[in-house]
């Protein structure tokens, strides 16, 4: 028994030493030993091979499936506007067939709508050898299955413990490091050390996710006293960004481990954590952020204006609060590559622990980060227009679609004003077409 115990202890010690030497120390110094690059190359080659096999297998099994599938969905939507469809035919006024337009739109929405699909993970074009993404892919060949089994073994038995160790190291050193730095009096040394601690721990955590991040246009990196806005896909967005620079985080105070991290880090660096009650008070929030931004020596704030996680295929409505603070906005676009691992956190389906587990058993997290030139509010532009302008820029840069819908629709009901707008449009057509001249009510005047 003792032999087994001491053997296990020795194995653990060797393991820890290897991890520290090969991963932790280089990331602390900011150098790379090339191990992750080699892993990524192998992974890319394997997935390409798998894709080719699957395509060959599919062609063999179902040769008649040559009908090209619709690019982005199940159905091809007919985009005729209400005006063209109902009012296009020359006629007097109301027709029984007018309901067909609304019927059609309704059925299209039932089969596939633009909004609810953003709250679940993106479907892959080709299987990436993870069970969780296997939606419609059937058994193809023995070799593919063997590769899949090897993949499962590698991911769960080797990568998962490794990543877990790294994450543990990263979080512990973040808490310990920032607490220690927090004891120092405010000075340049303190800021320098705090930045160092944050950067190092971020790098360790990124390694813990096997993250490969490409940063573009680094000359546009957010400056002090500015506000950095980005699209939101998952809680690890923050880690992705802090891997390359230091930001002041904004967020609600949580309990548990997250709360411990928050309390520790705020001593070292002026993050802005709000109590749950304060969040309701928008003026208080705006005031605190405005004070932070006004102090030009403070780190740039990091805000995710969508307010909730979206699945990285589109950018939803930006809440205007962040754009009322003033100051310079530095937009950042983050686009994950879903082939290697799905970063989206579907908070209604998975809690944070199962989410992290899924992330740690994916192949890798690969993403592109684009820093974009700073934007300021123009004369005569209100917060909503400014928010939309920034959103379009981010969507264009990241190759995402833009949706005018509110991310809050994940949980809340849609406002009635949209329905009222449609009703108004239809009424306009009825009144315009109809010869109801002598019964004018003054509701519509074009």
């Amino acid at each position, binding site marked *: 028994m003792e032999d087994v115990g001491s053997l296990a202890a020795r194995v653990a010690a060797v393991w820890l030493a290897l991890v520290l030497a090969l991963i932790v120390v280089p990331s602390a110094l900011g150098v790379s030993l090339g191990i992750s690059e080699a892993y990524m190359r192998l992974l890319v080659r394997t997935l390409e091979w798998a894709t080719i096999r699957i395509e060959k297998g599919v062609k063999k099994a179902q040769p008649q499936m040559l009908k090209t599938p619709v690019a982005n969905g199940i159905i091809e939507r007919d985009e005729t506007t209400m005006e063209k469809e109902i009012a296009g035919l020359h006629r007097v006024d109301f027709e*029984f*067939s007018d309901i067909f337009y609304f019927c059609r739109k309704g059925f299209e929405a*039932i089969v596939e709508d633009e909004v609810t699909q953003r709250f679940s993970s993106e479907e892959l074009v080709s299987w990436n050898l993870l069970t969780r993404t296997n*939606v419609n892919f059937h058994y193809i060949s023995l070799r593919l299955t063997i590769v899949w089994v090897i993949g499962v073994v590698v991911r769960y038995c080797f990568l998962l413990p490794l990543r877990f160790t790294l994450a543990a190291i990263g979080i512990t050193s973040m808490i310990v490091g920032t607490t220690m730095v927090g004891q120092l009096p405010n000075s340049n040394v303190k800021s320098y050390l705090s930045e160092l601690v944050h950067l190092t721990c971020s790098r360790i955590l990124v390694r813990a996710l096997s993250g490969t991040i490409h940063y573009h246009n680094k000359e546009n990196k957010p400056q002090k006293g500015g506000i950095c806005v980005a699209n939101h896909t998952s809680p690890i967005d923050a880690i992705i960004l802090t891997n390359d620079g230091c930001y002041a985080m904004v967020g609600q105070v949580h309990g548990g481990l997250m709360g411990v991290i928050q309390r520790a880090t705020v001593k070292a660096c002026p993050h802005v954590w709000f109590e749950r009650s304060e969040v309701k008070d928008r003026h208080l929030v705006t005031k605190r952020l405005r004070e932070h931004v006004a102090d030009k020596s403070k780190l740039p704030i990091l805000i995710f204006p969508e307010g909730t996680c979206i699945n990285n295929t589109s950018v939803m409505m930006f809440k205007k609060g962040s754009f009322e603070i003033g100051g310079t906005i530095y937009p950042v676009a983050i686009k994950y590559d879903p082939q290697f691992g799905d970063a989206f956190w579907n908070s209604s389906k998975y809690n944070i622990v199962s989410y992290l587990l899924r992330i740690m058993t994916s192949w890798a997290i690969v993403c592109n980060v684009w820093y974009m030139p700073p934007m300021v509010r123009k004369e005569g532009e209100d917060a909503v227009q400014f928010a939309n302008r920034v959103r379009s820029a981010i969507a264009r840069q990241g190759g995402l679609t833009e949706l005018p819908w509110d991310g809050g629709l994940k949980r809340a*009901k849609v406002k009635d004003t949209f*329905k009222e707008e449609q009703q108004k449009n*239809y009424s306009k057509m009825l*009144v315009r077409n109809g010869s109801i001249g002598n*019964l004018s*009510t003054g509701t519509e005047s074009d």
Partner: protein
Amino acid sequence: MGSRASTLLRDEEIEEIKKETGFSHSQITRLYSRFTSLDKGENGTLSREDFQRIPELAINPLGDRIINAFFPEGEDQVNFRGFMRTLAHFRPIEDNEKSKDQNGPEPLNSRSNKLHFAFRLYDLDKDDKISRDELLQVLRMMVGVNISDEQLGSIADRTIQEADQDGDSAISFAEFVKLRC
């Protein structure tokens, strides 16, 4: 999770649905994924709230009527078969179907069945007639608050006048069919 969707739908069920509705195998599996993603309660049926969670449907003026069409008389839940049966009304007619034999049962998406579906959207009390009140109800849903009662009433009267052939101030299904150009 993704794989759950395809395993819970057995092949015999898919065949039955295929025969009844005319959807293809892959269409049925995809629509089943859609059904399960809408089914937040994960009990194999959809309720009216599940439909109303679709924002584009919730803002449709006729949204409630359309949702109602899915639920059989007096029931609050619709299963996948019922879901597909209603959707089948709007399945586009494939080329190879046009020449099918006339002796088999009429496909769900035939012109006549589509008209029946539309008729039922108006005819709430299912008495096979669209009364002035029922027409007014649908009109009111579509225009909201933007048109006055008198104006709406005159539109309804004029529409019924044009379509009514047997003088009972209501539209029967035969008169309804004749309206379409």
